[in-house]
C-alpha cells in the first residue's frame, strides 16, 4: 500500500525555509517568491496548444451532454404508447441529427487544425510526440461520443426499415398491422392524415372483402369517395393523352415491321445470286488451275527443247570443226 508523504514533504519544506532563514541564506522564495513565480511563468510559452486542446474537449463534452439529454426522448417516441410529453416529431429528430453532425464536423476540423499546427511549429521530438498523443486522445474521445450518436441513429433507421419492410410485404395487411400502420402513418405526413377516418370506416367493410384480395385496390378503394369532379376530368384527359400516345407508338411499330419484312426479302434474292456466282467461280477456278498446270508443262518442254537445241548445236559445231580439221589434214597430206 502506498503511503502519502506529501504532508511530510511540506513539513520538510517549512523546515528548510526556517533553516535557510536562520542561516541567512538568500531564499529564492519569501516575499518576492510569488512575484518571481509569476515572472517566471509568464514568459513561458503558455501553451496555446493545451488551452485550445482543452477548449475542444469542453466542446465535445457539451455535445455529449446534449446527446444524452435528448436520448431518451429520441428513442422513446416510437413506443406505441402515445404520450404528450417526450414525443419528438421527425423534424425535431432530424434537427438533432443535423446539429450533432455539424458539431462533430467542427470538432474534427479543429482537431485537424491543431494537428497541422503542432507539426509545423514545434522543434523538439518529445513535445511533438506528446502533442500527437494528446490529439489522439481527443480524437478517441470524439469517437466515443459519436458512437452514442450513431447508436441512436441506428435504432431510428432500423425502425424505418422495419416499417418499410412491413408495408412492402403486405399490400393487404391484416387487421392488426393495418391499424398499427395507419396509426404510425399519422405522424408521416399531412396527406395521409385525412385518410385515418376513412380507414377506420372501411375497416368493417374490408374485413368481409378479405376473401378476395385485390392488389392495389385498397389504394383505389380508399381514393374513390374522395375524387372530386375536377380530378375526374383531369384523370380522363390524362387517360386520353395516354391512349393517343399508345396508338402512335403502335403505328410506328407497324411501319417498322413492314420495313423489316422487305429487308428480309431482298436479302433472300441477294443470297440466291451469290450462290449462283459461287458455282461459276468454282468452274473458273478449276479452269485456271488446269491452265496453270499446262503452262507449267509447257515450260518444262521448252526448257528441254532449249537444252536439246544447245546440245544439237554443239554436235554440229563439233562435226564442222572435225570436217575442217580433216580437210586441212587431207590438204597437208596431199601436198
Amino acid at each position, binding site marked *: *500500500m*502506498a*503511503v*502519502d*508523504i*506529501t504532508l*511530510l*514533504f*511540506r513539513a*520538510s*519544506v517549512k*523546515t*528548510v*525555509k526556517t533553516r*535557510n532563514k536562520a542561516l541567512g541564506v538568500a*531564499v*529564492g*522564495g519569501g516575499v518576492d*517568491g510569488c512575484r*518571481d*513565480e509569476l515572472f*517566471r511563468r509568464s514568459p*513561458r*510559452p*503558455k*501553451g496555446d*496548444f*493545451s*488551452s485550445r486542446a482543452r477548449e475542444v*474537449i469542453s466542446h465535445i*463534452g457539451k455535445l*455529449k451532454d446534449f446527446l444524452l439529454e435528448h436520448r431518451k426522448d429520441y428513442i422513446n417516441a416510437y413506443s406505441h404508447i402515445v404520450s404528450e410529453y417526450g414525443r419528438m416529431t421527425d423534424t425535431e429528430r432530424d434537427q438533432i441529427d443535423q446539429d450533432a453532425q455539424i458539431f462533430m464536423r467542427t470538432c474534427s476540423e479543429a482537431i485537424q487544425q491543431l494537428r497541422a499546427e503542432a507539426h509545423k511549429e514545434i522543434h*523538439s*521530438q*518529445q*513535445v511533438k*510526440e*506528446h502533442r500527437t*498523443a*494528446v490529439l489522439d*486522445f*481527443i480524437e*478517441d*474521445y470524439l469517437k*466515443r*461520443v459519436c458512437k*452514442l450518436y450513431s447508436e441512436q441513429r441506428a435504432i431510428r433507421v432500423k425502425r424505418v*426499415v422495419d416499417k*418499410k*419492410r412491413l408495408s*412492402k410485404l403486405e399490400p393487404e395487411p391484416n387487421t392488426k398491422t393495418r391499424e398499427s400502420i395507419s396509426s404510425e402513418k399519422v405522424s408521416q405526413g399531412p396527406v395521409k392524415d385525412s385518410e385515418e377516418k376513412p380507414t377506420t370506416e372501411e375497416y368493417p367493410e374490408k374485413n368481409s372483402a378479405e376473401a378476395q384480395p385485390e392488389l392495389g385496390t385498397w389504394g383505389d378503394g380508399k381514393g374513390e369517395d374522395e375524387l372530386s369532379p375536377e380530378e375526374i376530368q383531369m384523370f380522363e384527359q390524362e387517360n386520353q393523352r395516354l391512349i393517343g400516345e399508345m396508338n402512335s407508338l403502335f403505328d410506328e411499330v407497324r411501319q417498322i415491321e413492314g420495313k423489316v419484312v422487305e429487308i428480309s426479302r431482298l436479302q433472300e434474292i441477294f443470297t440466291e445470286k451469290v450462290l449462283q456466282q459461287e458455282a461459276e467461280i468454282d468452274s473458273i477456278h478449276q479452269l485456271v488451275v488446269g491452265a496453270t498446270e499446262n503452262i507449267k508443262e509447257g515450260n518444262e518442254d521448252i526448257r528441254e527443247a532449249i537444252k536439246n537445241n544447245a546440245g544439237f548445236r554443239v554436235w554440229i559445231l563439233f562435226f564442222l570443226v572435225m570436217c575442217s580439221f580433216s580437210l586441212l589434214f587431207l590438204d597437208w597430206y596431199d601436198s
Partner: protein
Amino acid sequence: WMLGVKMAAAAASSIRERQTVALKRMLNFNVPHVKNSTGEPVWKVLIYDRFGQDIISPLLSVKELRDMGITLHLLLHSDRDPIPDVPAVYFVMPTEENIDRMCQDLRNQLYESYYLNFISAISRSKLEDIANAALAASAVTQVAKVFDQYLNFITLEDDMFVLCNQNKELVSYRAINRPDITDTEMETVMDTIVDSLFCFFVTLGAVPIIRCSRGTAAEMVAMKLDKKLRENLRDARNSLFTGDTLGAGQFSFQRPLLVLVDRNIDLATPLHHTWTYQALVHDVLDFHLNRVNLEESSGVENSPAGARPKRKNKKSYDLTPVDKFWQKHKGSPFPEVAESVQQELESYRAQEDEVKRLKSIMLLKIRVLAPQRGIIAILGDLNLSVYITCSSLPELLEKKRLIDLHTNVATAVLEHIKARKLDVYFEYEEKIMSKTTLDKSLLDIISDPDAGTPEDKMRLFLIYYISTQQAPSEADLEQYKKALTDAGCNLNPLQYIKQWKAFTKMASAPANYGNTTTKPMGLLSRVMNTGSQFVMEGVKNLVLKQQNLPVTRILDNLMEMKSNPETDDYRYFDPKMLRGNDSSVPRNKNPFQEAIVFVVGGGNYIEYQNLVDYIKGKQGKHVLYGCSELFNATQFIKQVKQFGQS
C-alpha cells in the same frame, strides 16, 4: 460472513494483480482508477528510472499505458525537453543520482506539476534535499503529491516474483557466497533483500510467519525482516499493516507462511536440464522479464562452406498472461506443447474456413438475392453474418499471432534440443537424481563428441558429483577430469562444488531427490508423433513423473506441519508476537493455506514449476515463489566459475 468470503476471495487475488492495481492508481494521480468509457481524456508524462522500467514492463504494455493517458514515457537520466502544461508522474528509486536529477528538473521547470512516487521509502534527508531544490526553484506548489509506493520487486507471473534485475550482481549468488566478502558488504546485500521483501509484504497486505534454516544467509534475512516488520507494527501511527489497507488483504483466518531457504541446500536444480516449456525457453533462449529474444536466420538452405553468413533477424516476443496458450502450456512437457500448437493451428484453420464460407454466402446473397428481393429483405441475414464475421475476426487474428509466436519459439527450442541432444541429458540426469540404475556410463556420455556443448557435459558431471552418496575414487575422478578437459570444459566450477559438498556434508545429509521414473514412451507413440509438424524423430517423448525437489519437500513439511529431521530445527519468527523470537516451537499447529517460498541466492523456473505442480494437487492452497535473482544454468556456471578463479 459475506465480508469474510470477500476477504478470502481478495486474498486469493494474485500478487500480480495487486501490483498492477497499485501502479494504475499511481498513474491515475494516486486516486483509485475507475474505468469510464465516456470520460474526458487526461494526459500525463511518465518518468522512470531503470528499476521502475523493470517493474512496469512485465505488468503494463505500452497500449495499457496509453489507455491510462500517458503520452510519453521517458527514462529519468535521458535528455528531456520541457513540455509545458503537462503533469509528470515520476516513479524512481530514491538514490542520490535520481534525487539530483529530479532537483535539476525542478530547477529547469520542465513540466507543469510533479507527482513524485518512490519505489521504496525515501529517507528524511533526501526529502529535504528535494524540498531545498523546490524552494530554490520556487516550484513548491508544483510538487503536487509525494508518495512512497513500496513496490520494490518485480512480478513476473501471477505467483512468482524476483527482487531486481538491474543490480543483480549486488544480490547474486556469487555476491552472497564469495569467500572474501566483508561484514559491511554482507549487511548492504542483506538490507537490499530485506527492503524488497518488506515492500512485497506491504503490497500483499499480510504479515507472515517466517521459518528459515539455521546457519545460512537465509537466517540473517529472516532476522532482519522480522525486526523490520516488528518495528513497523509497533509504530501504531504509521503502520502499513493496519486499518483498511489490511482489511482488504488480510487472509480471513490465516496468515501466510514465509519459507526462507538458501540456494546452497540444492545446487543440482539450477544445473538441471529440463523438459517443460517455460523452463526450456529460459534455459536455451534469451529470456528475461517475460520477453524472449530470438535470432532467426532467414532462409533454411544449407549454406555451402565459404558462403556469406546468413542474415539473422532479431525478433522479440512478449510472453504475457494475456497469451492463453502460454498460460496453459508453460508447464507442460515439450512434446505436449508441440502437439498443442498443431491442434491450435488446426482449429484456427477450421475457423478461418468457416469465416470464408460465411463471407462467400454473404456475397452470394448480395449479388443474387438483393436485386430480386431488395436489399431490405435480406438485411436481417446480412446483419447476422456480418456480425458473426466481424466479432470473430479480431479473435482469429489474435489466435494467428499467438500460433505464429509459439511456432517460432518452439522451433527455436527444438533446434537447440536436437543440436545438443538435451533429451538424453534430461533423462540421464533424472536417473542420477533419483538414484536408479544407469544404463549408460557417465564417461560414455561425456566423451561423446556430438551430444551437447561442453557446458552441458559439465552440468551433467556436476549433478552426478553432487548427488552421489560417496565421492568417486581418485582414479575415477582423474578419468572424468581428463574426459571433461578433452571435451573442452573449464574445471573451475568443480573446485567450488567440491568445497561446497564438503561443507554441506558437515552440516547435514546430502539432499535426497526422491524417487522418480521416467517412462520413455513406446515406439507406437513415437511413430504417431512423426506426423506432426515438429519432426521429433530421435527426440524421445519423455513423460515427467512428479518428483519433489528439495525445496518443494521443505515447503511440504512446513506447510503441513509434518515432522521431518530436515526441517524440525528451522527457526520460527512471528513479527506479531509481543516478545520472544527465538523459539523453535511453532505456536500454530494448523496447516497453512498460503505460503511464500523465497530462495536467497537465486532461483529458476524448474523449482517454480515444481512448486506449481505440487500445489495443484492440493485444493485451496496457494504458493508464491520468489528469489533474489533468476538465473539459468549458463549464468550460474559463470558465477561459480569466478569462484574457482579467485
